[in-house]
């Protein structure tokens, strides 16, 4: 391939991506690219109604279609005890509806046909009679006494309540609020949005009846968890289930849950004895798979007149849709929302989250949210801006007065999280200098005088990522740790197998760089294997920015195991004591005689050769490890955004966006920058455009990309990024993870900028998405109701 000829680093640094070679040639291998002999195609019939009793399903006309092989309904699954499956939140979810449908787009029947067009045609031939029921789509109304009970399938469930969860100290917080000089309250909605990865969800199931083996190619971010789930749900022996997550066209949390379509493909293959592929279309993706957010929040912030922030209190109604199918650690039904304490030194904090069912698609934890840190950061950063407005203090200045100081780390926040490391004021000052904060404020004053609407928005976020520790964090009882296996072949080439999986993050490059950094083996000599349960060690998968904090640590540690063993082998090769050897990247040498040494490649050959190894040292150079993180990591950043709003059309334009991120040690700055850019674009989408809304009857109003608007190249500015480096003290290489920082941190910066721009109109807050019609309403002094 013709490229520029800079030497790639052996270790950390800008390294062009290994995986590009196949993608730029159109040779990626996504689920829908895989064809098997005799393969059939599945399609799902979905409910047109949000809440209705199923009176009857008649598939006879569909079965008469010459190309239809089978039609599976909930009744058929019921006979196998498969009509319902457990969710990752210990709730149940209908695979195919039996009694009722509970949201528009719910799975009702599965058609299997000879080709994808015929499968779709046959959906039209299934006759379903529904008896409509009252609908509840507004989370605020879900617990009303007259609200229809959605989950009457659950014994003892007499309302739409799922859980109550609290964090912090309610009484201590009340005491601080009682003596505070200033209290600001704000209702806000983090609206329902959708990750909408470019590749929709799908699966190809191949069940071998003779050997009882199931191979499932699936759009999953967590292949090992899925394998265990299939073993638990379908009673399939786990050692005969192989889940392969091939190239994945974006995940963003949308591909963590087990979806009914996957289970239908598996059942379809078992029933027909042939491979069955199911790929959802875009509307199915938007209307039925894991959405994000939908948090109805009431925030309160207490402070002194001088701007000292004292306490924050939040009440949340969390809309989980018709089934509680969120994926987050079991003990945390609201994810890590309790990190709403943000980046500030508070005296007290308390939150209460109430989860409710509504007649909407299930989900909630997705779209690069770091288990609800997105909602937490939005809440606290909007509250701080509201306080700044109330006190008449510049929002950047107010933050500088309250940010945690570097010497306060490790810092135990009032809801129990222990922030590992940080230098917050440096990051914020850097962002302010980069964007020219003072000059911008002066420009804003001039423009305001001319009647122009310009806004400057600041946000400072603290993320918490890299779940576990496993003693506190599990999914379906599976502790949140991850594995890495490294083998050095005799010729010094290496293979690294990871339990995490990539959806575009570039693991094949960055994880090879970690090995290169530790062992001095060039990246080109390291093959990274991932996404196949048969070839990789067990682990919980890639979401919540886990890969670098957890599997990255595992990779460094397994490489160090190899290095420790290599020292013993080198000592045998060189006939010196291991203690007399010194390591420099790529080789051991005898202390005092650098010419006498052995490279890692020579050691690998010796490990497989005939040299007499020290007592207790086995031949070969292979190791495996599973990493149980002692704590989460806490990336942080300072974001500043400039917006201009057209006073005539109310259209918001993001003019500039400066992002200063700190993800600890930086493995590959090019990939980090790319991750930040992507997250910032998500932020523009959520702040300005993206929403999944419903009408009163539960019809999804944003079920296609005609209605669900995603930023294009014209809606986003040329991003300006910079960084600081504060390594995590407990991570083997000091890395913190970056995948979700920008998605978490950018929406409040943009909304803060918009509210700042609209201050002359008396606007103190408006809910996302800040699209022209809603901004216009806000400018007229009648903010549009939440969508």
């Amino acid at each position, binding site marked *: 391939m013709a490229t520029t000829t800079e030497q790639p680093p052996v270790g950390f640094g800008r390294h062009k991506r290994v995986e590009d070679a196949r993608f730029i040639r159109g040779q990626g291998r996504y689920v829908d690219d895989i064809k098997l002999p005799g393969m059939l195609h599945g399609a799902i019939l979905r409910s047109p109604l949000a809440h209705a009793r199923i009176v009857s399903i008649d598939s006879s006309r569909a079965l008469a279609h010459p190309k239809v092989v089978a039609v599976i309904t909930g009744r058929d699954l019921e006979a196998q005890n498969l009509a319902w499956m457990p969710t990752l939140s210990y709730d149940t979810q209908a695979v195919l509806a039996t009694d009722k449908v509970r949201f528009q787009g719910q799975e009702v029947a599965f058609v299997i046909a000879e080709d*994808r067009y015929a499968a779709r045609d046959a959906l039209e031939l299934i006759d379903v009679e529904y008896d409509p029921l009252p609908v509840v789509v507004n989370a605020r109304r879900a617990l009303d006494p007259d609200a229809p009970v959605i989950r009457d399938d659950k014994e003892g469930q007499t309302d739409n309540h799922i859980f109550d969860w609290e964090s912090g100290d309610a009484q201590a917080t009340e005491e601080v609020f009682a003596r505070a000089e200033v209290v600001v309250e704000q209702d806000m909605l983090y609206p329902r949005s959708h990750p909408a990865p470019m*590749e929709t969800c799908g699966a190809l199931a191949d069940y071998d009846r003779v050997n009882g083996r199931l191979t499932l190619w699936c759009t999953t971010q967590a292949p090992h968890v899925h394998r265990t789930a299939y073993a638990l749900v379908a009673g399939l022996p786990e050692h005969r289930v192989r889940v392969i997550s091939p190239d994945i066209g974006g995940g963003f949390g949308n591909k963590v849950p087990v979806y009914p379509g996957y289970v239908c493909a598996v059942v379809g293959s078992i029933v027909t004895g042939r491979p069955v592929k199911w790929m959802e*279309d875009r509307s199915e993706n938007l209307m039925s798979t894991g959405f994000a957010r939908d948090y109805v929040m009431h925030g309160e912030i207490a402070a002194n007149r001088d701007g000292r922030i004292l306490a924050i209190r939040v009440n949340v109604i969390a809309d989980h849709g018709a089934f509680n199918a969120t994926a987050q650690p079991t003990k945390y039904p609201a994810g890590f929302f309790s990190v709403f304490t943000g980046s500030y030194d508070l005296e007290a904090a308390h939150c209460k989250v109430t989860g409710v069912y509504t007649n909407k698609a299930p989900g909630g934890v997705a779209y690069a949210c770091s288990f609800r840190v997105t909602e937490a950061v939005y809440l606290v950063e909007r509250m701080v801006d509201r306080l700044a407005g109330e006190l008449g203090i510049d929002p950047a200045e107010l933050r500088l007065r309250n940010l945690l100081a570097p010497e306060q780390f490790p810092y135990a926040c009032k809801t129990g999280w222990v922030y590992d490391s940080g230098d917050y004021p440096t990051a914020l000052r850097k962002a302010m200098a980069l964007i020219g904060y003072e000059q911008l404020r002066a420009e804003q004053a001039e423009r305001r005088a001319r009647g122009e609407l310009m806004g400057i928005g600041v946000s400072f976020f603290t993320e918490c990522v890299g779940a576990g520790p496993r003693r506190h964090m599990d999914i379906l009882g599976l502790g949140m740790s991850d594995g890495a296996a490294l083998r050095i072949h005799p010729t010094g080439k290496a293979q690294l197998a990871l339990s995490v999986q990539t959806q575009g993050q570039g693991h094949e490059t960055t994880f090879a760089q970690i090995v290169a950094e530790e062992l001095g083996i060039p990246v080109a000599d390291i093959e990274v294997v991932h996404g196949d349960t048969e070839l990789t060690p067990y682990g919980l998968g890639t979401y919540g920015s886990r890969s670098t904090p957890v599997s990255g640590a595992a990779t460094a540690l397994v490489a160090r195991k190899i290095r420790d063993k290599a020292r013993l082998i080198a000592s045998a090769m060189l006939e010196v004591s291991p203690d007399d050897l010194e390591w420099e990247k790529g080789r051991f040498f005898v202390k005092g005689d650098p010419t006498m040494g052995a490279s890692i490649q020579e050691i690998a050959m010796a490990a497989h050769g005939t040299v007499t190894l020290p007592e207790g040292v086995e031949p070969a150079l292979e190791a495996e490890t599973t990493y149980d993180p002692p704590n989460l990591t806490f990336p942080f950043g300072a974001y500043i955004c400039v917006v201009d709003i057209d006073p005539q059309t109310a259209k918001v334009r993001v003019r500039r966006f400066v992002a200063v991120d700190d993800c600890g040690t930086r493995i590959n700055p090019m990939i980090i920058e790319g991750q930040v850019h992507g997250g910032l674009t998500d932020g523009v989408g959520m702040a300005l455009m993206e929403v999944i809304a419903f009408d009163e009857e539960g019809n999804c109003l944003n079920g296609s990309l005609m209605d669900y608007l995603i930023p294009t190249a014209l809606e986003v500015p040329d991003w300006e990024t910079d960084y600081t480096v504060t390594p995590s003290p407990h991570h083997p290489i000091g890395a913190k993870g970056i995948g979700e920082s920008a998605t978490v941190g950018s929406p409040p910066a943009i909304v803060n900028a918009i509210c700042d721009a609209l201050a002359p109109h008396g606007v103190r807050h408006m809910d996302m998405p800040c699209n022209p019609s809603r901004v216009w309403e806000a400018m007229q002094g009648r903010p549009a109701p939440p969508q």
Partner: protein
Amino acid sequence: MQVTVNVNGVDHTREIEPRLLLVHFLRDELDLTGTHWGCDTSNCGTCVVLMDSEPVKSCTVLAATAAGHRITTVEGLERDGQLDPVQQGFHECHGLQCGFCTPGMMLTARALLDRNPNPTDEEIREAISGQICRCTGYATIVRSIRWAAEHSDSSSAQEVSV
């Protein structure tokens, strides 16, 4: 019905249903899976191919309509083992992450550079504005296409294996 479509310089004749979309013709009949499918509404652009050198969304073109036209897919960008400068640019400038939108983006870029060898950043953004990328935030795609514009003389590039 029988159609003959010229894809990447080769005529392919197939018996197809009249309603077959070009994207499925390419993927299912010709096994050219580099052309992706991402929405039903012509919004996402992962299915973009060139039809007589113009970008089209192959999810809204019937295979029958493409008969008699020249179709270029991502698999046709590399010539005689030499990557198109656009492909090189995406690799050099990190213009891709998950890779799903990449083929469509690169083909639009090729068409842009063919008619405007030295586009401004604004012209590049305009050209790709009918396509969605969820990973990159577009800035690196813009850089990639600019790189390709600046390295259009492929003979000046040096051969390095990737």
